[in-house]
């Protein structure tokens, strides 16, 4: 691909069925925001029932379980993956590697339009007989296979499985697009070690996704067969419901768990690694320094990716597997803290001797650093098999994953959105609103999910419609109320963000510069917003690394697009 060529002319071609990665990225982001509102409302219903059972007497156990299931499903796949991986990945990667567009623009467009019916199927499942799937986002059989086990396992689960199949098709298309673009379409001179850290994270995330999602595809297909075609992949002999013995023979529910978590564990790094990548980008621009430990970060991410594929059994410590296998999984799981410790070091050390500029993107980024620490350390309690015996299926797990794939990913999404918004839309977000949103999001999120860790320490179990049935957990129950109140605060704060985002995108003050943050990476050397084909002239030739901050006397920063010159161009400090 050489010079930028003429793009589509019709409204449909430009904004609906666009093959431009930037438009597709924004489509994904907006869809993720819509799904986030739904998933967030579901969370509020959960929190109401937990904190004020009786007030929510309209929330029956079947409704509650469906809502818990769908909240998790929508958040993991249709908000975080859709927004962070599909949304930002699409918008950012070609710009940061110096490509005109993704390697396969048509496939890219299709990947978005496959997601849309997936969203509809998920939402539609609430309105069918039996309600939405209710066996948890993990959908373990036999509960998820048999409508007589729980109402949501009727049509609701079938729709869930079909929606997931479509989602997996979409993310497969996206992953191979990212992989090909990053490996094959970089600007001349951009070696792998000159790529921005965010690009590395998307590369690794895509490889993980390509290799891990098929396990869930296989599991979903076999579950559909068990549900509708009478097979017994996961259904054992001798199950009794309502006095009737089911005809299934010989299957094992554990097989589903192995397949599910073979995907499930890498999946969380598919989400967390890009979150860390985006954070590094923001840190660089707002510390005016290259991030500490570029190479060790890259190698750490690769180690995380490799380890993530061989540790899935730590979700299954209590299933009665051979204890030697359990020990193996425990030993290898806690090894993941090692590369994450290096990443944590690099994140913190990037602030060393920095020239801190605390605009909104940076506030979120700093929040991410702390969240990575808390979330990551919490993993030690769960990865150590002996202590997991106590914490498995408790609120400790809920707090842990809400910190890691909730707080870390959400804060990084906001960091990314506030950072790149001017380039995306050519307008400025309201900085005060962003700062307010930051505080009203970060403080409640940290507090809520920390309290959940304490509840888990008290042994409170998850997916529980009414916790007052037990007496042993009475010490933890009082925390339900503050958590629920904070959940409402958090949700309300997101309305500030949405108003800011859409209001500014349509009516915000126009930016005066193509590079308002004075950042270095290639996307900041395009017009604002970037046209179809990204660079009106030739694609930049890269002759330096991505973070030339404070590395040339007299120049605060040098654009990565800047060729080697006697006197580097860039603003003075």
């Amino acid at each position, binding site marked *: 691909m050489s010079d930028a060529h003429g793009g589509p002319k019709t409204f449909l071609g430009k904004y609906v069925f666009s093959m431009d990665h930037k438009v597709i990225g924004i489509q994904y982001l907006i869809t993720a925001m819509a799904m986030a509102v739904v998933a967030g409302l579901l969370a509020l219903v959960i929190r109401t029932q937990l904190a004020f059972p009786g007030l929510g007497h309209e929330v029956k156990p079947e409704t509650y*379980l469906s809502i818990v299931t769908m909240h998790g499903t929508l958040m993991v796949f249709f908000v975080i993956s859709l927004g962070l991986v599909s949304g930002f990945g699409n918008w950012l990667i070609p710009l940061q590697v110096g490509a005109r567009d993704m390697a396969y623009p048509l496939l890219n467009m299709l990947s978005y339009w496959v997601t849309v019916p997936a969203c509809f199927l998920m939402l539609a499942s609430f309105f069918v007989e039996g309600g939405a799937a209710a066996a948890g986002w993990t959908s*373990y059989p*036999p*509960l998820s296979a048999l409508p007589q086990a729980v109402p949501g396992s009727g049509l609701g689960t079938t729709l869930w499985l079909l929606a997931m199949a479509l989602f997996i098709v979409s993310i497969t298309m996206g992953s191979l697009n990212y992989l090909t673009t990053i490996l094959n379409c970089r600007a001349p001179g951009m070696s792998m070690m000159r790529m921005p850290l965010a690009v590395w994270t998307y590369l690794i995330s895509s490889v993980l996704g390509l290799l891990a999602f098929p396990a869930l595809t296989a599991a979903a297909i076999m579950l559909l067969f068990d549900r509708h075609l009478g097979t017994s992949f996961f259904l*054992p002999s*001798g*199950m*009794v419901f309502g006095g009737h013995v089911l005809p299934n023979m*010989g299957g*094992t*529910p554990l097989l589903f768990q192995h397949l599910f978590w073979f995907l499930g564990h890498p999946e969380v790094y598919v989400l967390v690694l890009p979150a860390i990548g985006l954070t590094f980008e923001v840190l660089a621009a707002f510390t005016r*320094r290259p991030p*500490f430990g*570029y*190479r*060790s970060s890259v190698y*750490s991410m690769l180690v995380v990716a490799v380890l993530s594929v061989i540790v899935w059994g730590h979700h299954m410590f*209590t*299933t*009665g597997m051979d*204890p030697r296998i359990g020990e193996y999984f*425990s*030993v290898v799981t*806690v*090894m993941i*803290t*090692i590369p994450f410790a*290096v990443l*944590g070091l690099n994140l*913190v*050390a990037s*602030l060393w*001797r*920095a*020239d801190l500029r605390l605009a909104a993107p940076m*506030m979120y980024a*700093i929040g991410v650093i702390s969240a990575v*620490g*808390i979330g990551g*350390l919490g993993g*030690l*309690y769960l990865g*150590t*098999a002996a*202590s997991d*015996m*106590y914490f*498995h*299926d408790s609120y400790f797990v809920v707090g842990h994953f809400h910190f890691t794939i909730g707080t870390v990913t959400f804060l990084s999404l906001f960091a990314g959105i506030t950072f790149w918004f001017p380039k995306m839309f050519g307008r400025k977000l309201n900085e005060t609103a962003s700062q307010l949103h930051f505080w009203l999001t970060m*403080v409640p999120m940290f507090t809520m999910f*920390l309290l959940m860790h*304490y509840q888990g*320490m*008290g*042994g409170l*179990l998850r*997916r529980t419609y009414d916790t007052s049935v*037990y007496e*042993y957990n009475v010490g933890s129950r009082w925390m339900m109320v503050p958590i629920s109140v904070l959940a409402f605060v958090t949700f309300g704060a997101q309305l500030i963000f949405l108003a800011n985002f859409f209001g500014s995108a349509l009516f915000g003050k126009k930016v005066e510069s193509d590079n308002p943050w004075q950042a270095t990476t290639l996307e900041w050397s395009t017009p604002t917003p970037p046209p179809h084909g990204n660079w009106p002239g030739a694609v930049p030739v890269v002759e330096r690394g991505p973070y030339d901050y*404070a590395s040339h006397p007299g120049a605060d920063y040098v654009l990565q697009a800047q060729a080697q010159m006697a006197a580097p161009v860039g603003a003075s400090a």
Partner: protein
Amino acid sequence: MKAIALAVFFLVMTVAVVAGFAAGGLRPEVASAHGARVDTVVDYVLCSSGVIFVIGHAVLFWFLVRYSGSVPVTYVQPSSAVQWRWALGVAFGMALVSEVGVLVLGLPVWAEVYGEPPADVLDAEVVGVQFNWLIRYPGKDGVYGRTDPKLVAEWNPLGLDEDDPKAADDIVLPNGRLVLPVDRMARLSLRSHDVLHSFSVPQFRTKQDLIPGFVAHTQFRPTKVGTYEIACAELCGLGHYRMRGTVVVMSQEDFAAWLAKQVGYYEGG
């Protein structure tokens, strides 16, 4: 200003988290032998992760305060060697902390729960159904009688086979009440009639899934007389939240007396 606010927030966070570590006391009082060891592992992780957390946030706090002001800062990019030395040092330190927990403290616990039971072990069976725990003791012959799912009925919730002589003396407690002697290892066989369940007793630090089609085992030695709750720890349907049972731990004499009074399922009237 913003930096100070952030730094203060992290300070508050650190205090809260450290206070939370003290609230490791939220754990219900431990009442089993291996449970005490589990608590040791948790205490270890609390301390070690706590130290790491405090150090990390102290550094974060310091950087925010020091580098957000107007005092100019000289910066030279650290050399590659320096960056690698820090990375490897942190990596090594983290490896030590995490693996000591797993290998030194954790392995013995795991071995106790899954290892060979002692000679005087008490066998009992727990069958999970939606939404109750069915308890069975093998009786004087020490052997469980045959059960068949086809025989499951309201009056025979376990599906115990009347024609099996070994079933006659089986003691069945169909109301979710497990009775055990103190200071004696109990080994439970765990099964399910329908979906996944999980047998957990928080005070024993015990948790084992019940998987239909499979017999799992777990063992523990209760160390305190008392009544404890069995909580289902794997989502099993609408009644999951109320699938509550009890474990009654008695002195060994009381247990012997209680056992002697029990009638075999197909014995007596």
